[in-house]
């Protein structure tokens, strides 16, 4: 791969050594010429023309021409170079007062990614690609600080929706490629790093029945170092994804790591420092305000006298609560400023048949939540070795250690508590009541945070060995084997000092818990690629391969209730540790696949792909699934009849149809199982055996037939390029973890039940607005519209599938994640009581869940991005504006923050409540009794908590300055850049809650698919400002 470059580079180096520059003369001459592409014969812009060992340097213009004047006469070596192209070296003689002409034709470098696209199990030239594939460069990922690399994909590709996780360090983003087509099977795209589909279970360490998780989902991708990434390909349609068969339906994200590309020994160093804060702080009531509302509720309910807080379980007296000494702003105890730092050292060495890339990184990502940060230290070594002609060996190895210093959040505590149960009347140090010998106010959030030692440490190593051999000029065979090993440990230690605050009788040293888990994910594939140019006009290629993957995760739970420190930090004898095994889980795939391409005159391209997938998850009647696809691409601009339209530089139409699947669901759902007697109690002294699950022999992948048609065009000498794509995805056999009627004897059951369609258009436009010698201005705009509809839910009703506690449902003829709520009408001005609508639209004062209807959904109508890059001399300004149009936000927690007066603090918006007869208020009157809201149960959801989720956000803005070459000449640096980056600095929205971009902590994959944009005490997004330095030498 790299051998073409070294050869040429070697020549250049040798030439440079031979023909040294001669010293300067007073009188000068000039050099001029034209730079073209060797294959297309078209002029190339932006090629650097360097007169070696002098300061003379120029860049070719749009018409390919260049001109350098003022060169002293003599013989020089001139190097023509451009990213993604092979260097050209020429010798030239400059004469006084003469312009020497020197033209050059450059070739696209085989090793470069520019016009070569990584497709599954191979690569293709972008021209000939017939599928829908978006490419994002590594630089775009690393230029903005993000909690994890996938968050940086936001706005980078049309139709790829990225909801960045909250401002919690290391949080997971929610990514959906072309809408939502899964319900209970994970709806995330398949992530493939250097050929291995990596472990990506967001719920891996969630323990059943325990509150562990702390209101935060583990993000398995956070341990992947963004600086390792050369580029990312996002496969969107069936022509591209069906080669991944039963796992491709929700898109495939192919990550290629960096390899050595430059001759000799090179170093890159970068550093970044930054600070973060919330985009907006939660706006809660102060203590006097809260007390005033409590008093108001007290009197509204017809009570008299001094309000009694004990009705809501608050143990403070009214006088204590009114004592300003006790008042605390808990939000300020939890939210601070996060400090971020990132250092990266990368080395590159390339010799004759050996190349190595080494990367060392440290990232310390402190969130604005005090005490919360994610630290990642990582290493990567990628080796390329070509011992004999035709044999190419690649080894890729990485090791990273991610440490998340955890705090409670959301419903589990921390900021979530500051927004709810931690009332502003509670003092910093809890009040002690000597009569009951206990604290009568809760332990401070800062105390819990400081005393609780809680970390998750993830060690991950992704390794790949790839051997390819060119048997002859037509045939290459390739074998790849990979291991993705993940060792995930969660350590929690609660010292005696903390436990005694709850239990004064506690005598021991502290509770230490350890949840380790290990995932060994192995993959291997063998492919053979055969290419043949049959004649001048006809060429064919074929690829066939087979792959197997096996993953097993083992875990346990270890605890000690008399520990002086965390299990990983203090020596606790094994005998003192209580260990509980947890159920391992295991899955495997076996696959056979092939691809056939035919090209006519390099302008008409056909592709057929197919894959057979067998999986451990498929029922006995469906062991293998077949996933075919066919696509065609036609480069119309090559046709004679198009030549008359001179303004069209390039035009390609493509269309494809194919099938892909999603098999990312419960590993064991297909098996019929029985719980052994040893795990069950006895009845009447006799042992039991209880059926726990019925076999589902028909369980299989969900299947998506995807039609895609697109047109790509370039006009105005390539200054305007556009792409317009239409797609239609029809998903059937949708996996649903159906809450089946309990009269079956079960609560839920995995089955292939439903149907979903996604139909949409994607449009992107890239324009070069200004292109002069000093100034460049380019604009990138993309927008995607997706219409989602559930077309079948079998015999079930909306409540058979629920998005956790978030009141989203699966409703026929509505989109996935429909807000299914009782409609709120208004607050009765006379009484202050809420008025609802019943099913028929009549007003009622009774809240009845039977009156729920589809009132909104979590999916946006459209979203997109506007990016502008303006460079002037060495300065560059880059601004990304992300926009989201439509989609509802459901604030699940405000039923306690804007409604009933309880033991929660309230959102300041509640001040717009009914107080006196005749008031036209948004929120009902304050009351302590749910009956006054027409309900027999206290926590009721209505569409009063639903808002439009549209927003526009300045996602990132950065200003960079490249140090002039003249300055660098004196140093050893080849390049140096300084950059200022701001993220999420501005947001425009009508949403009245904290932040309109929401990915809360999810309970399971169904919840993750259905409850984006639902907030429950969710930590807001962060905004950050950073400064970054990059050096190359």
């Amino acid at each position: 791969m790299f051998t073409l470059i070294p050869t040429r580079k070697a020549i250049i180096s040798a030439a440079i050594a031979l023909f040294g520059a001669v010293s300067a003369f007073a009188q000068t001459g000039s050099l001029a010429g034209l730079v073209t592409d060797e294959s297309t014969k078209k002029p190339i812009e932006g090629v650097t023309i360097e007169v070696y060992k002098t300061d003379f340097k120029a860049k070719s213009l749009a018409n390919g021409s260049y001109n350098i004047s003022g060169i002293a006469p003599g013989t020089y070596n001139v190097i023509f170079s451009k990213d993604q192209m092979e260097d050209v070296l020429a010798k030239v003689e400059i004469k006084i007062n003469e312009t020497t002409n020197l033209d050059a034709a450059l070739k696209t470098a085989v090793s470069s990614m520019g016009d070569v696209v990584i497709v599954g199990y191979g690569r293709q030239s972008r021209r000939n690609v017939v599928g829908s594939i978006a490419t994002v460069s590594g630089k775009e990922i690393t230029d903005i600080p993000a909690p994890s690399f996938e968050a940086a994909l936001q706005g980078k590709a049309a139709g790829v929706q990225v909801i960045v996780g909250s401002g919690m360090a290391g949080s997971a983003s929610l990514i959906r490629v072309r809408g939502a087509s899964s319900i209970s099977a994970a709806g995330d795209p398949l992530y493939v790093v250097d050929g291995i589909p990596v472990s990506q279970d967001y719920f891996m360490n969630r323990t059943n029945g325990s509150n562990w998780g702390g209101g935060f989902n583990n993000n398995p991708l956070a341990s992947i170092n963004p600086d390792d990434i050369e580029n990312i390909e996002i496969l969107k349609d069936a022509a591209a994804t069906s080669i991944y068969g039963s796992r491709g339906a929700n898109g495939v994200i192919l990550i290629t790591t960096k390899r050595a590309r430059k001759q000799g020994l090179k170093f890159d160093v970068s550093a970044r420092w930054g600070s973060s804060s919330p985009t907006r702080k939660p706006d809660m009531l102060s203590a006097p305000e809260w007390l005033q509302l409590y008093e108001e509720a007290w009197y509204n309910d017809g009570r008299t006298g001094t309000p009694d807080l004990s009705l809501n379980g608050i143990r403070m007296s009214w006088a204590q609560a009114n004592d300003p000494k006790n008042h605390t702003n808990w939000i300020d105890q939890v939210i601070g400023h996060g400090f971020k730092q990132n250092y990266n050292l990368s080395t590159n060495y390339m010799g004759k048949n050996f190349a190595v890339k080494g990367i060392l990184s440290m990232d310390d990502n402190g969130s604005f939540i005090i005490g919360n940060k994610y630290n990642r230290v990582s290493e990567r070594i990628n080796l390329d070795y070509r011992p004999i002609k035709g044999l190419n060996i690649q080894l890729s190895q990485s090791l990273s250690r991610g440490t998340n210093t955890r705090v409670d959040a959301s419903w589990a505590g921390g900021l979530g508590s500051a927004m709810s149960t931690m009332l502003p009347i509670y003092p910093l140090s809890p009040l002690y009541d000597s009569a009951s010998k206990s604290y009568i106010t809760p332990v401070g959030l800062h105390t819990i945070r400081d005393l609780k030692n809680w970390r998750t440490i993830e060690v991950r190593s992704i390794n790949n060995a790839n051997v390819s051999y060119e048997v002859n000029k037509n045939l290459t065979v390739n074998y790849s084997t990979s291991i993705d090993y993940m060792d995930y440990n969660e350590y929690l230690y609660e010292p005696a000092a903390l436990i005694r605050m709850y239990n004064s009788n506690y005598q021991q040293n502290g509770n230490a818990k350890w949840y380790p888990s290990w995932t060994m994910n192995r993959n291997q594939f063998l492919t053979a690629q055969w290419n043949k140019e049959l004649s001048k006009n006809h060429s064919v290629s074929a690829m066939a391969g087979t792959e197997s993957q096996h993953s097993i995760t083992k875990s346990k739970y270890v605890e000690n209730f008399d520990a002086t420190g965390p299990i990983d930090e203090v020596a606790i004898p094994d005998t003192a540790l209580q260990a509980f095994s947890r159920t391992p889980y295991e899955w495997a795939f076996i696959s056979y696949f092939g691809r056939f391409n035919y090209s006519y005159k390099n302008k008409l391209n056909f592709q057929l792909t197919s894959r057979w997938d067998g999986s451990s998850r498929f029922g006995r009647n469906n062991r293998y699934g077949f996933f075919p696809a066919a696509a065609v691409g036609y480069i119309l601009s090559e046709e004679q009849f198009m030549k008359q339209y001179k303004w069209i530089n390039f035009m390609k139409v493509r269309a494809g149809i194919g099938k892909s699947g999603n098999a990312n669901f419960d590993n064991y759902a297909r098996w019929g199982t029985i719980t052994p007697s040893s795990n069950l109690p006895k009845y009447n002294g006799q042992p039991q055996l209880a059926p726990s699950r019925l076999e589902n022999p028909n369980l299989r992948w969900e299947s998506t037939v995807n039609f895609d048609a697109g047109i790509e065009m370039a006009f105005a000498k390539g200054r305007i390029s556009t792409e317009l794509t239409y797609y239609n995805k029809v998903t059937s056999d949708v996996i649903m973890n159906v809450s089946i009627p309990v009269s079956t004897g079960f609560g839920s059951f995995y089955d292939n039940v439903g149907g979903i369609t996604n139909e949409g258009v994607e449009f992107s436009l890239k324009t070069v607005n200004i292109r002069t010698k000093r100034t460049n201005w380019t604009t990138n705009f993309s927008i995607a519209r997706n219409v989602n509809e559930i077309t079948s839910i079998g015999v079930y009703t909306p409540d058979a599938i629920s998005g956790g506690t978030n009141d989203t449902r699966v409703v026929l003829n509505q989109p996935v994640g429909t807000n299914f709520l009782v409609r709120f009408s208004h607050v009765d001005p006379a009484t202050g009581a809420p008025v609802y609508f019943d099913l028929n639209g009549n007003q009622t004062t009774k809240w009845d869940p039977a009156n729920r209807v589809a009132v909104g959904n979590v999916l946006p109508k459209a979203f997109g991005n506007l990016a502008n890059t303006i460079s002037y001399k060495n300065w560059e300004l880059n601004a990304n504006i992300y926009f989201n149009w439509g989609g509802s936000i459901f604030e699940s927690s405000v039923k306690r923050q804007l409604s009933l007066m309880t033991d929660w603090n309230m959102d300041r918006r509640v001040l717009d409540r009914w107080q006196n007869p005749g008031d036209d208020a948004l929120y009902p009157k304050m009351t302590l009794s749910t009956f006054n809201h027409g309900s027999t149960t206290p926590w009721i959801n209505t569409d009063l908590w639903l808002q439009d989720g549209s927003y526009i956000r300045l996602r990132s803005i950065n200003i960079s300055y490249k140090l002039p070459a003249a300055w660098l000449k004196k140093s050893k640096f080849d390049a140096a850049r300084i950059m200022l980056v701001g993220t999420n600095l501005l947001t425009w929205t009508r949403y009245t809650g904290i932040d309109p971009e929401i990915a809360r902590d999810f309970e399971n994959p169904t919840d993750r698919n259905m409850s984006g944009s639902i907030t429950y005490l969710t930590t807001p997004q962060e905004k950050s400002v950073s400064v970054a330095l990059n050096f190359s030498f």
Partner: protein
Amino acid sequence: MKKNLFHSFALFLSMAIMGGAMVSCDNMIETPPPNELLVDDAIKTTDDLQRLLNASYNEVANTFGGFSQMMSEMQSDNLASPNNNDLRELHSHNVLFFNSTCGGYYSILYRAIFRANFVQDNMDKVADLSQADKDRMTGEIKFIRGLCHFTAVRMFAHPYGYSAKNDHPGIAIVKAASTKPSPRLTVAEAYDAILSDLKDAEAVLPESNGDYADKMSAKALLAHVYFQMGKYTDAANYAGSVIDSKKYTLSDTVNVFSADAASEHIFKIVSTGINDKRSGGYSDNYSPGNPTCQMSRELWANLNVDLAIDKRLKLLTVVNAGAQNEFVKSEMFNAPFFNVPVLHLTQMHLIRAEALAKSGGDLATATADINAIITRAYTDNSKLVASGSSAKQIIDATRTQRRIELLFQGDRTPEIKRLGAVESQNIFVRGHRWDCPGFLLQFPITEKTTIFEINPTGGCN
């Protein structure tokens, strides 16, 4: 050139085939779940089937150890409004489909049915299963199914007799282990299925079967079913055959939950010790200092006139007497654990007394039945039914005694429904007529499918 092409293509093919061989081991994609047994491995012997059946009894025990009885009492006029959101919805006859207590109750009834069906569907996996064991298990399966379906139809559907043809919505009848949703059948269809199961059970169950269901259990339950349907001749016959078998004798104690009353128990939920306590549905809800289940003030006002002579009222305590927070609690369930009789002899006497009187049967026997209960209950003879009393006199006395005898046993609500639907009484509870829509338990919302419409919410005004 051609040869070269052929060579490379052949090589390409052979590589592909080799690759196939490398991984074409289907065993690799067989990864059964750890820590659980696969059905085929787990069911090999009669003992395995017995254990599976015991798991069904386990669910029966969890339901009928007091939980089911409490759910029924809560709707009736026997209890005061509880301090519990879910149960208060039952008490106010306005149960939402999100009521998790009610949903849990429904699901446990059907889990018992599922587990029974699972045994039935897997019996053929045991080759050497004897005919006697097969019959017994089949009988037990059908008895459990009958008991649970009968309980469900009484609680979740309007009673037998609510509509002329009983074609009003009933319940799901599940007779095979499957994840396929079942339709909501009519009440007539439900009763047909229940009778059919119980008669099959009666035919194949052994005369005695330890603590598990036997022939008499099936007969006693049939007496209940017929009585609920207003088919009094059949009810009297079945109750009579249980009484006349002389297998059971009335005890002296007025607390049928006491160990001394074991001679009356026809089918019971067994608690073997404090670690295997199945009576929590009673003790947890009736025994604490301020219990969830407190007697309604109206009932107490009715009963306490006989405080001096009615021994049964000695099992009730007035707490905070005279104060605003006065309440009446039961002391019947204070033992740490006890057996809970689901079917017992007192019920048979009460059924036979009324059924004979209603169906023109032998009034002397009916009088003897009710007087056996009365004699035990009172310290004097003032309440005895005189011989030669009319059918109506016997019926009135029996109904009065029934309410006290079967207090807290979940009998009152079905009795109110029977009196309304079969006996055409205009009977109310807290101002709600027996047939108002909210006087039913509500199904959990997940029960709703295109073939199963759930009950409306509330609607009793």
